[in-house]
Every structure is written in structure tokens, then in C-alpha cells.
């Protein structure tokens, strides 16, 4: 306590609090660079530019995998049978309800599914189910997704996300942006 022992808040108390507050702000200011250095670096962020792909060679029932931001994305052309199957799924049966046609794109015919390949549970890559009515099954903890990447069952809680994309021309798909100028 100060020598003259005043009860009311005095100049000294103010100085203590002001010093403490400045100290806290200073500590936070120094801590931030040490935390932020862990975030994706400028190099990593720059590698996240949109990617371009020609979809004319993808046959119905076939899928290809592309990389954007060092993560894989599936592009799959649905067959007419698959298209009719996914539209029959009742929204009430889905954990993360979304109509199938909101998840299907294309420039002339809407038959392309473009979704992230990393399972929305913990990030493994689901495998295509051969000859099944359902689409993908994740090997890690067993989540099952339909042909459009909607979660049907298992620990994943949300559908495979649809990345931003745009068709620059009929067959030129750009993933990573919705602006056709960005290619």
C-alpha cells in the first residue's frame, strides 16, 4: 500500500491498472504473430487459385478427381438411371436435407455432380460403391453418401460440400470460383 494509505481510488491505483492493461495488450500483440504464423502461409494461399478442366471426356457413370487447394474433388457424370434414383430419395430420410437437383450442374444437360472428395466426417476419401444404388462409402468410419454426395448414414453429419464452380464454355469447367473471367 502507498505510504499515505488513502482508501479511495487514487492516482497510484489508476497507474497500476493502466500499467496492467498496457501489459496485457502488449502481451497479446506479441503473442499474435506467434499464433498467426501457424495459419496457411502466403505461398499456400496462393496455391489455391481456381482450376480448369475439360469435362467433355467424362462419360456417363464415370468420375474423375481433380485437385483444388491441395484437396481432391470428384466430378461425376450421372447416368439417366442414377439421375432418376437420386430424385426419388425422400428429403425426410436425410440428415442434411437438400434436393438432388440443387447439387447437380452442367452447361447444357444437368448431369454433373461436383463435390469435395473429403468425407465431411474427418476427411478420408470415400470410395465409389460398385454397382450399387448408393454413391460413395467412406472407408474410415463407414459414412455412406448418395450419388450427389448427400449423407445417407454414418457418423458424418453434413453432405459433401459443392465447391464454387462455373462453366466458362460448354465443356470448360472452372472449379474454385463462380466468375468465368477468373480462369
Amino acid at each position, binding site marked *: 500500500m502507498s505510504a499515505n494509505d488513502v482508501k479511495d481510488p487514487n492516482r497510484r491505483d489508476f497507474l497500476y491498472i493502466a500499467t496492467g492493461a498496457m501489459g496485457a495488450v502488449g502481451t497479446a500483440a506479441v503473442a499474435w504473430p506467434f499464433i498467426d504464423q501457424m495459419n496457411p502461409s502466403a505461398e499456400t494461399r496462393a496455391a489455391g487459385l481456381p482450376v480448369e478442366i475439360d469435362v467433355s471426356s467424362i462419360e456417363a457413370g464415370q468420375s474423375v478427381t481433380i485437385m483444388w487447394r491441395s484437396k481432391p474433388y470428384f466430378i461425376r457424370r450421372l447416368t439417366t438411371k442414377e439421375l432418376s434414383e437420386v430424385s426419388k430419395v425422400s428429403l425426410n430420410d436425410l440428415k442434411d436435407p437438400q434436393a438432388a437437383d440443387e447439387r447437380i450442374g452442367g452447361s447444357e444437360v444437368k448431369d454433373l455432380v461436383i463435390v469435395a472428395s473429403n468425407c465431411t466426417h474427418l476427411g478420408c476419401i470415400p470410395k465409389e460403391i460398385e454397382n450399387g444404388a448408393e454413391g460413395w462409402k467412406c472407408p474410415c468410419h463407414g459414412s455412406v453418401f448418395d450419388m450427389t454426395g448427400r449423407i445417407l448414414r454414418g457418423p458424418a*453429419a453434413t453432405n459433401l460440400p459443392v465447391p464454387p464452380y462455373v462453366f466458362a464454355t460448354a465443356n470448360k469447367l472452372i472449379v474454385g470460383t463462380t466468375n468465368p473471367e477468373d480462369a
Partner: protein
Amino acid sequence: MAHEQHGIYEPKNGFMQWIDVRLPLPRLVYDSFVAYPVPKNLNGWYTFGGILSIMLVVQIITGIVLAMHFAASTQLAFNSVETIMRDVNYGWLIRRIHANGASMFFVAVYIHMFRGMYYGSYKAPREILWILGVIIFLLMMAAAFMGYVLPWGQMSFWGATVITGFFSAIPLIGTGIQELLLGGYAVGNPTLNRFFSLHYLLPFMIAGVVVLHVWALHVTGQSNPTGVEVKNFRKETVPFTPYATLKDALAMVLFFIVFAWFVFYLPDYMGHPDNYIPADPLVTPAHIVPEWYFLPFYAILRAITFNIEIPFTGIVLIDSKLGGVIAMFGSIIVLFFLPWLDTSKVRSARYRPLFRQFFWIFAGVCVALGYLGSRPAEGIYTLLSQIFTAYYFGHFLIILPLLGWKEKPSAIPASIADAVLADKKA
């Protein structure tokens, strides 16, 4: 609390006297590891603390040597580990000691923890001692997980993806936290580099907490299989050296025989063949499993396949993904509260007939969860995981609190000396 101890340190010569009045480190060692009294009736299960200390030293020495040859880069890591295996002199030996050493470390820590649960070692006044132990366990898990990422095989990569994926379950800020941990949008070079840095650091942090753990132990004194505190120091304790020192040394030798058997005859038994395939971000192995020591927790993670909703409204409170992550972390966090969840005044399971049965059921449930964690996540395996996960939490949150006042303990000996004499007669 001033302690009675077996003998007092006396510096043998002028030089030791000179040291003693400046930095009495020899005195500290003498008080802690020579004259320190240990209960006479400790059995073999009490040697695992010593084994754990030596295993930490083994991991640090072999790790520092591996780090001299390892290159933390996604382009080089896999091949540098192969170079260690094929070209570095005795590299195969050192790496196998380190990789199997991690497994043996967990064998020892699980025995050590179940010992604590059986004999009620976590009860007053040893709560902090127990909590420090749980902290060491968490740090060990982090160290082992990051170490497993370093060889940059398929299991390394996908293990890292799945485990850092836990953080993306946190609502709103999850993805941001995940990217902060990874240093990118997916597991990659920045991830490998920082994991190497932290993998190097963590064992030294563990060593720091071990010092606190042993300090806390030496304040409260060691418990013993009867759970009765020492009453007569002369009759019921012996000096740490030579009695505990030699017994611990014998146990270490036996443990090292098993360890060596794995290193030389079954070096890859506890590993996974997929980790000899270089990491490929495009293909997840058909069946991904963590190292055996994480399997029970992995089973708990996968058991939550359902959303938790407000009944009849369909509003999701906790989705299945967040639920799994909460359950998994919860299964370890609950250990912190064990000293207060177990309401019984009696420490040792020896005198708790009901608890003893529940202890073994619980141990069986943990093993069963471990088995389920290694199976594919489907059908009956998922159902069983859910049942055993419920039991796991039930054990801590329902059974232990209730047992404390329901159970009628059997007659507790008045002292350690009485218990030892009774054993002799029987």
C-alpha cells in the same frame, strides 16, 4: 509435512561438503532415491512407474539419434526413414527400438493406470498425483500421434487427416482451427514440419510433468496394495535403496526382454503394413486404423453415429460428428474427475468385493472397445461399440458414485503390518 526417512545424507568428503552448501543436488537425490521410505508390501504392479521413466529415456535417446537422419519434408521424409532402415549404421535397430518403444511405453502406462484404479491410488490425498498422471497420458498420446505422422506413409497421412479433422467438428470456428493446426487446407508440408518440431518438444514437456508427478508422490508417500496408510514407519517401510531400486531394476530387465523380443523377432507386429506405402492424398487405405493403443478411443469416436436432437422438434443440438469427438475426449477427461466420482472411503479393491467385480468388467469393456476399434464400422460392430461406450461412461458416472454408499466393504486390516502378518499365516 516433514518426513521420516531411512538415514540422513552426510557428505563423504570436503568436495561433497563444498557442493552441499552451494547446490545440494546430491542431498536431494539421496533423500528421494536412497533414504526415501517405501511400504514393505508393494507388489510387482508397482514397478511400472520405474519402467515408464526408463522408457521415456529410451524414446528420447533413440529419437534424438533418428532426428539426425530424418528429413521433415513431404518429398524426403519417407525416403529418409527408408535410408535409416537400410543405410544408416544400425539405423534399423534404432528405429525399431523407437517405434516398438512407443508401443511398450503404452503397455506400461496402461498397466500403471489400471493398477491405480484397482488399488484406489487416486484417492485423497493423491488427487493431484493422479491428475498429473492423466496429463502425462494426454501428452504421450499427442507425442505418439505426431511421431506416427513423421514417416509419411499412408497411415501417417490419413491418421493425421482424421485426427486433425476432430477440430473441424467444433461449430463455427472449427475449420479455422483445423487450418491453423495444419498450416494449409489439407495435411501437407507445413503440417509435417510443425509435427516434427512438436514431436521433438513434447517428450521434454513430459519429462517436466514427470518431475512434478514424482514430487507429488514424495509428498504424499506411496500407497500400497492394502490402501492403508503407513502407521509405523520402522515396521512398515524399507529404504528405497536397495529394496525398491533392485526390485524396479529386475522388473525393467524382464520388461526389456519382452521389448527386445518385439524389436528383434516381431518388429512390425504392432505397426501397420500400409505405412510402408508413401502418403497419397488421393487414396485412403481401404481400412484405416490407428495404432493399437488408440483403438478403444477410436471405437468410442465411431460409436456416435446419430444426431442428438431436442425430442419431437428435429432441432439438432449436437450432430453426430461433434458428438463422436465430444465422447472421445470425454472418455479421457472423465479420468480427471475419478478421485471425486469414486465416493467410497475404502481405497483398495482388496476390501471392496463389488467394486472388484466391476473393475474387471470395466477392464474387459476397455479391451472389447479396443477390439471393436480395429473392426470395420458397420452392423453389429457399431451396435456393440455403442453399448460398450455407454458402459464405459456408466462405470465412471453411475456405478462408481453409487457403489460408494451401496457397497459393504470387507474387514480392513488395522495396519500394513497386520495385513502382512495375516497373509503370512494364510
